[in-house]
């Protein structure tokens, strides 16, 4: 098997010295030859890990800080709680399942495929029960969609609260799903699909989270999914089967999906009345706020991603998305919204999926107020926090899609702020 590479203390010290030298390596002339280049390194001499060392690979240890994290004081118990995707440290658009945010109402359960049953009942000609194997025999589709918790950025209604884009905007992930259109299963059971009907979906876990979906949406793009990013759903994302409700709030994406019921009214379950509704200043509340409006945020620089390289070329990068369709444009401001520049999209955005944007710029080393502003295919322009508050007051919790501001100091340190 050969001798395995292990980083030695000697190598570590040498690496540190090289890193220090690296700070000036960007200029035209290095002060002296870089030992990382001129000296034989352990990794260039000893052999590395064998092929089956890690049958299912984890990120390299140097990246072990890139993990989902919770904010303990937000909820009573980690079992009915949420954590946050490390979006500050990711690029591109696909979220790896292992660091995609989790939200459970009674914990993540272990449900074997063999024990899995899916019932379709209610206003149908043929109430049916499917096994997991049955589902794999229906024609299936592949789509990339974002899933955003309605409470994403919810802590920020009252003001700048948490210093980190992971915590202000990390209740989101974006995966490629493989699944069956919900309409296929509805039609298989001979459902009454008239437009005034509803489809109630329910999970198999102890919370039996249930939501009512209007028939029009159920027939449109909802998927009964069993794979994400090519592999089986992870336990925390609803293994073996979850619902995917493109562009609509994450709570409706029922995990461990066990039942689909066609009804003539909305069930008005706990999660669609007492939760996921917003109270306005006059005390009235808005319900059935399903769509996630267009939103964007700069992921780097951000509080967890300070600028370490000083003035000069700077890549400002971020994410944009809309529950109404494609992102068509993202503008970036470096002065708190006085002047805007249109950013470059990494690639043309998929509908209801994350779009990556870049502003390739020169930083003059002076403080900045960074903002991003998304536009979607309907022409909707992401609002400011003030515009939202004017409409909805400050008591709302959900659906905060305001423009986020990062103050970046001359030292490159970024902080969550609010502006006039």
């Amino acid at each position, binding site marked *: 098997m050969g001798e395995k590479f292990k980083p030695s203390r000697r190598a570590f010290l040498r690496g540190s010295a090289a890193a220090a030298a690296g700070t000036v390596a960007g200029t035209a002339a290095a002060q002296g030859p870089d030992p990382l280049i001129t000296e034989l390194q352990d990794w260039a001499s000893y052999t590395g890990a064998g092929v089956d060392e890690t049958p299912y690979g984890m990120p390299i240890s140097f990246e072990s800080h890139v993990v989902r994290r919770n904010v303990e004081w937000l909820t009573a118990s980690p079992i009915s709680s949420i954590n946050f995707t490390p979006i500050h440290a990711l690029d591109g658009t696909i979220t790896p399942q292992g660091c995609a945010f989790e939200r459970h109402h009674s914990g993540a359960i272990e449900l074997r495929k063999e024990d899995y049953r899916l019932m379709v009942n209610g206003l149908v000609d043929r*109430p049916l029960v499917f096994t997991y194997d049955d589902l794999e*025999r229906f024609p299936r589709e592949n789509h990339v969609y974002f899933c955003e918790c309605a409470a994403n950025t919810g802590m920020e209604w009252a003001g700048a609260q948490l210093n980190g884009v992971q915590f202000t905007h990390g209740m989101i992930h974006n995966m490629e799903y493989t699944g069956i259109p919900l309409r296929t299963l509805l039609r298989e059971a001979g459902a009454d699909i008239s437009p005034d009907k509803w489809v109630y979906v329910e999970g198999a876990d102890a919370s039996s989270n249930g939501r009512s979906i209007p028939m029009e949406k159920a027939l449109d793009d909802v998927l009964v999914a069993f794979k994400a990013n090519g592999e089986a759903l992870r336990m925390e994302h609803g293994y073996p089967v979850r619902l995917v409700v493109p562009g609509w709030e994450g709570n409706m994406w029922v995990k461990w999906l066990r039942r689909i019921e066609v009804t003539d009214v909305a069930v008005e379950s706990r999660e669609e009345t007492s939760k996921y509704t917003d109270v306005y200043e006059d005390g009235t509340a808005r319900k059935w706020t399903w769509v996630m409006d267009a939103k964007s945020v700069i992921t780097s620089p951000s*509080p967890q991603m300070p600028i370490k390289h000083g003035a000069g070329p700077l890549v400002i990068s971020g994410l944009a998305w809309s529950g109404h369709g494609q992102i068509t444009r993202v503008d970036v401001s470096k002065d708190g919204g006085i002047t805007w520049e249109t950013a470059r999209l990494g690639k043309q955005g998929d509908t209801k999926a994350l779009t990556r944007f870049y502003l390739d710029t020169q930083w003059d080393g002076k403080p900045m107020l960074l903002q991003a502003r998304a536009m979607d295919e309907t022409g909707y322009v992401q609002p400011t926090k003030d515009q939202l508050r004017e409409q909805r007051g400050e008591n709302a919790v959900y659906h905060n899609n305001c423009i986020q501001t990062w103050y970046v100091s001359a030292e490159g340190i970024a902080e969550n702020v609010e*502006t*006039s």
Partner: protein
Amino acid sequence: MSKPLSQIFLPAIGGTALMLAVAVVVAERNYGDNQIATLERQVVQVSERAEKARATGQAEAARVGELEAEIAEIQAAAALRVATGSNLTAPAPEAEGAYGLGRAALVEEIAAWDVDVLPDGRGLPEGKGDVWTGEEVFADRCASCHGDFAEGVDNWPVLAGGFDTLGDEDPVKTVGSYWPHLSTAWDYISRSMPFGEAGTLTADETYAIVAYILYSNDLVDEDFELNHENFADFNMYNMDGFVIDDRPDLEYAAWRSEPCMENCKDEVKITMRSVFLVETPPEGGSNSVMNHAAGEELPSFTAAGPSFIPEGAKATQAVAQDTAAPAALADDGADLIADGQKVFKKCAACHKVGEGAKNASGPQLNGIVGRTIGGVEGFKYSKVFQAALEEGRVWDEAALTEFLAKPKSYMKGTKMAFSGLKKETDLTAVIAYLASLGE
């Protein structure tokens, strides 16, 4: 089967001789006239052939043009399909009852799973429960998280009160003040409560709990009984408090417009800095700490840039650091402990363990094995635990095994709502896990 060569050659030779003979006769008769006539005929024939060839050529050229155009068209279409992505993808085919997959759901199966209750009360089972029964059941099954008076313990939901606060800065959204339908309470309690023991309440217990929650909200009198017949008549306080999503009218109409790109504001000031800095320790999770720099002044901005450049800004940054993987447990007991840790998920909603674990709705369990029963400071124990403390009883493995198998019979009157671990392997594992925890 080919013909003999003689059969081919002999007629050919005969034909040639005949032609030569005719030619000699014609030449002798009138050579000049004939030659002219022949030439004229030939001219006509050649012209006709040339004309024909020209026409054929033209037709073929036209056909080539057509084919080339056709090819170009196909190529262009292919290029367009590649460019726009509208290639061979298509939605999954579908049809009414087309696949014949799955099997008929049985009546018993539908009855077991289809238990949701609609706002008009459809789906409710027969049954009843009064406030007094509800108070007892609530104290036994719900109060450890929601409080004896539905006031909520710690961060757990408050179920009562909050009337006339919905327009306040911090609205108190309870079953009484906020929930628009009573069916929601019945449905949720019946299917999802108690937390950690969902689905174990009887219909009568559920009616009783709902009756008690209404009573603790002052919405019914103490002699009230809720049942499947009077259920639908009950109108909730906030039944008219909801409007259906009106963002399309109020927001989309106004916010679908070309945005400003230059000189959009004269000056921008920072009005608030982050309340918390969030540390991201290598072991995971996060620590929110007050942002003490929040009072320091930061520049305002105009089109000319920042008003000043603060020197050595103190804002702390939470930069994640690389972390070493925690040392794996190497001893033989590791598997059992790991199994126990999984079983402990059933307990973790109420009991905390690990460094700095605090009492929650149950006492913290560090060092529980060998600890005096009822001995955690600051936890309000039930009478049976207080008595055990006075007697000096200790949680040894035997006592824990018996208690965790049937909590309510081993410690009669315990506040712990958990009904017990049925599997002996789970008991052994969870106790091994608890024993592995430090003080």
